[in-house]
């Protein structure tokens, strides 16, 4: 059996096992999720909330932007509080104050420490006790707690309206006045927030691990594990005894062990398979004579769109960041009345994915006919039609989101055409389906171009083309994960499928697509043997997928998952970091290929952006990713500024840089005669990298670290509170984003200007004269 065939079998087996485990975990999450009660009553049967209240509240929350304004269970935006943690703390303090007042005190804070401890113990017993009756679907609250719930509810009803009493908080949280204008909706919203806080503080029903009879004496027959809440004790809240459960400690330690073992194993593999397989590279650029077909030429507009979306994304990012300084205005302009924070952040995060995805879609459409040399009939029409569909989706989905956040769409249409409120899966269901159809069209267009190669005789490059095609199939088909939840699906189940989309789709299959495309590019350039490249890509795919598929679960530690999910998520996501530790090899290899021959100067800038991908993969995905990855770390860090530290450096650093590299590679072929303005590209490259590094080092890392200390010392709510976020040091750190962001923007503008000048008044002449003549062939090997 050939090496390639063996690897294919290993990959197939790995994917079967991994997806089985992932699906089993989904069933476990569904089984163990916090129950949705039919009714919530106070002692004596007085109704507090109904199921309809809570479900309607979730709809309201989704329509106002959901995770794009504050967060739930740590997932979402960072300026407004985590509503679950905030509610939990307010409710706990309200109960304690009532009890303190009943004892004749001025309030809980004024009591002596001993009395405080006594009340805190009483509070923990009350708040953590599970009063849900599965038979009747009823949660029963103590009278004091019901009174506290009413008190906190009034606060939220004030906050989400336009009550002057909470104006300061609205500004601190970057909320517009009348975020939810309808009083009934505000009350329902409070019901939903209460339920998420209830799940975060209520212990799961006891699961007893019985020991077989006769093994131990009767009084020791049952091992009673420490009780944890539905969210595995998240958020950290000392008042109600929410501390990290033992499983987070255990699996964090084990995850580090797995990481080191994985690094050792892969190191061994690198040592024994050092490839000395040198071969002679071509005298001239094999792609210089590439025939650009009409459909390939039509992809140019995709790359213009990429640049336009990138610039708009940066502008929206600046607005979103500015809201952290001035909650409702920008330099005196009442911006929140027109473009509130939740909409600028929604568009900012979505455009990040959209422009990167557009770059890759364009690359797929450009590269498929380039590989096969086959231009199917009506291919250009398909490329143009898909582009028009993408434009309609972006404009339509964004318009729906604006109408939703401005509360002009109504709850009945929100799920289908407005704002779903799930971060990175925010667009309405109609637009999701439209996008899914668009992706299938893309898959068809790429597939029919590659078909002659796929159907042709077995060749060494066929394996790599096959892998590229499989990744396009996976990208097209797996977007359907975003269609798996319904309007009223349980939030834990929505989270499960949402992370299929965000983690598996983006971090998994796009990763394979990117690896295959890069290898194909180097193969087509004659710098790599097809057989070597095929084995390398298959092996890399196996290594990525080993951790990547089950590693999806590391996003789900605290969304109502059982301990098994923590164990699997922690162990396998640690393995995701393993290949990143060896990116030095990858980077050096790419660097050597970039200098293998004189004509590679033509591809100097795509190669440099590929190198940047390796660097940020190590720093942004590897280091900053693992920083927040072990369950114990994430217990405190989830939703603090350490999360966007990983988000920005990994999403832009890896996928953004990769998108730019691919765009530049395609532009080299689309505009072969133009002399490239090296100075603009140099400015762009260094500004983007330095700007991103400054954003990370001057703001996100120090601010996230300060928040982390605050969360550990005082509880999670405090690290996200207005009280903490309004401290002068936080203000200063937020302002420190300006230098980095300015430099970053200069880089983006330089790139846009470079692309514009390729079409508008381009520099005439042959490109890269030095490389055109061709340098003597040089032997390259890994």
């Amino acid at each position, binding site marked *: 059996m050939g090496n390639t065939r063996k690897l294919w079998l290993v990959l197939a087996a790995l994917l079967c096992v991994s997806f089985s485990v992932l699906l089993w975990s989904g069933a476990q999450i569904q089984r163990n999720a916090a129950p949705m009660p039919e009714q919530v009553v106070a002692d004596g049967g007085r109704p507090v909330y109904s199921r309809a209240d809570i479900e309607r509240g979730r709809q309201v929350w989704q329509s106002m932007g959901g995770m794009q304004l504050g967060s739930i269970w740590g997932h979402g935006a960072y300026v407004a509080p985590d509503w679950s943690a905030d509610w939990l703390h307010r409710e706990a303090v309200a109960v304690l104050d009532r009890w303190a007042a009943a004892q004749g005190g001025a309030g809980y804070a004024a009591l002596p420490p001993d009395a405080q401890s006594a009340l805190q113990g009483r509070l923990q017993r009350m708040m953590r006790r599970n009063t849900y009756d599965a038979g009747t679907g009823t949660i029963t609250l103590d009278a004091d707690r019901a009174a506290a719930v009413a008190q906190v509810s009034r606060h939220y009803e004030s906050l989400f309206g336009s009550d002057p009493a909470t104006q300061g908080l609205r500004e601190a949280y970057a909320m517009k006045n009348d975020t939810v204008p309808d009083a009934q909706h505000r009350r329902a919203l409070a019901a939903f927030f209460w339920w998420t806080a209830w799940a975060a503080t209520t212990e799961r029903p006891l699961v007893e691990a019985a020991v077989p009879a006769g093994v131990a004496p009767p009084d020791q027959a049952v091992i009673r594990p420490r009780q944890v809440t539905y969210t595995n004790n998240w958020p950290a809240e000392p008042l109600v005894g929410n501390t990290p459960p033992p499983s987070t400690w255990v699996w964090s330690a084990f995850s580090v062990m797995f990481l080191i073992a994985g690094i050792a194993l892969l190191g061994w593999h690198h040592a024994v398979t050092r490839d000395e397989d040198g071969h002679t590279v071509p005298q001239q650029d094999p792609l210089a004579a590439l025939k650009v077909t009409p459909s390939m030429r039509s992809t140019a507009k995709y790359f213009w769109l990429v640049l336009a979306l990138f610039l708009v994304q940066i502008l929206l990012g600046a607005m979103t960041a500015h809201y952290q*300084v*001035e909650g409702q205005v920008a*330099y005196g302009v009442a911006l929140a009345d027109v473009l509130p924070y939740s909409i600028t952040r929604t568009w900012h995060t979505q455009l990040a994915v959209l422009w990167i995805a557009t770059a890759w879609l364009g690359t797929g459409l450009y590269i498929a006919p380039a590989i096969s040399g086959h231009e199917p009939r009506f291919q250009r029409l398909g490329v143009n039609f898909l582009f028009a569909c993408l434009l309609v989706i972006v404009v339509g989905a964004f318009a729906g989101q604006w109408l939703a956040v401005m509360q002009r769409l109504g709850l009945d249409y929100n799920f289908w055409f407005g704002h779903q409120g799930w971060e990175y899966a925010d667009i309405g269901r109609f637009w999701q389906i439209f996008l899914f159809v668009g992706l299938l069209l893309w898959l068809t267009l790429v597939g029919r171009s590659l078909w002659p190669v796929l159907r042709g005789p077995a060749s060494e490059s066929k394996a790599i083309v096959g892998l590229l095609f499989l990744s396009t199939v996976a990208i097209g088909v797996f977007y359907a994960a975003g269609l798996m939840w319904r309007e009223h699906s349980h939030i834990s189940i929505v989270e499960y499928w949402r992370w299929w989309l965000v983690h598996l789709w983006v971090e998994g299959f796009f990763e394979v697509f990117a690896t295959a495309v890069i290898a194909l590019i180097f193969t087509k350039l004659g710098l790599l043997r097809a057989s070597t490249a095929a084995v390398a890509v298959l092996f890399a795919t196996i290594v990525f997928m080993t951790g990547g598929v089950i590693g999806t679960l590391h996003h789900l530690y605290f969304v109502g998952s059982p301990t098994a999910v923590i164990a699997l998520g922690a162990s396998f996501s640690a393995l995701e970091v393993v290949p990143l530790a060896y990116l030095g090899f990858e980077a050096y290899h790419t660097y050597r290929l970039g200098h293998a021959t004189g004509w590679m100067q033509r591809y100097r800038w795509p190669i440099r952006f590929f190198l940047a991908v390796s660097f940020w993969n190590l720093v942004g995905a590897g280091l900053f990713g693992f920083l927040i990855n072990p369950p114990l770390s994430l217990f405190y860090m989830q939703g603090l500024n350490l999360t966007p530290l990983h988000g920005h450096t990994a999403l832009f650093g890896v996928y953004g840089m990769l998108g730019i590299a691919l765009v530049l590679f395609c532009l080299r072929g689309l505009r072969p005669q133009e002399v490239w303005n090296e100075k603009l590209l140099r400015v762009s490259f260094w500004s983007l990298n330095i700007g991103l590094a400054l954003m990370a080092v001057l703001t996100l890392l120090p601010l996230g670290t300060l928040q982390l200390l605050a969360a550990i010392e005082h509880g999670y709510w405090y690290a996200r509170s207005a009280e903490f976020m309004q401290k*002068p040091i936080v203000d200063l750190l937020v302002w420190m984003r*300006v*230098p980095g962001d*300015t*430099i970053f923007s200069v880089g983006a503008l330089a790139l846009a200007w470079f692309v514009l000048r390729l079409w508008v008044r381009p520099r005439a002449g042959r490109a890269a004269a030095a490389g055109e003549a061709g340098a003597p062939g040089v032997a390259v090997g890994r």
Partner: protein
Amino acid sequence: MIEFYPQIKHAHIGLALWSGLFFALRGAGSLAGMRWPYWAGVRLASYAIDTALLTAALMLLSILPAALYANGWLWAKLAMLAAYIALGVLALGRARTRGARAACYVAALLAFAAIYGIARAHHPWGWLAPYFAR
């Protein structure tokens, strides 16, 4: 942030003076045919000062945004700033002849002086405010 307004304003003024001084020296060096104005360290220092200056300016503006809507002095200053940047770029090498670069250099310094005057007077007429302002 208003409690730090004086410190930020002092930083802004200090950085503006450093920026102007740096440009004056680099421009003079460039016109004299020296190479040091183009050293990477010098250029990076210049960028660092200018981005810090911009940061301080935006901080001041967010604290007291009313300046934008006062008598137009801030808009006048911003217009002169655009002219200063354009002339500065020309003076430091973009202009084709040495004479053109020298003229741009002098014009840029005059623009800087105008910015300084407008900032001090809080009036669009700047240095000339005592004569023209009503």
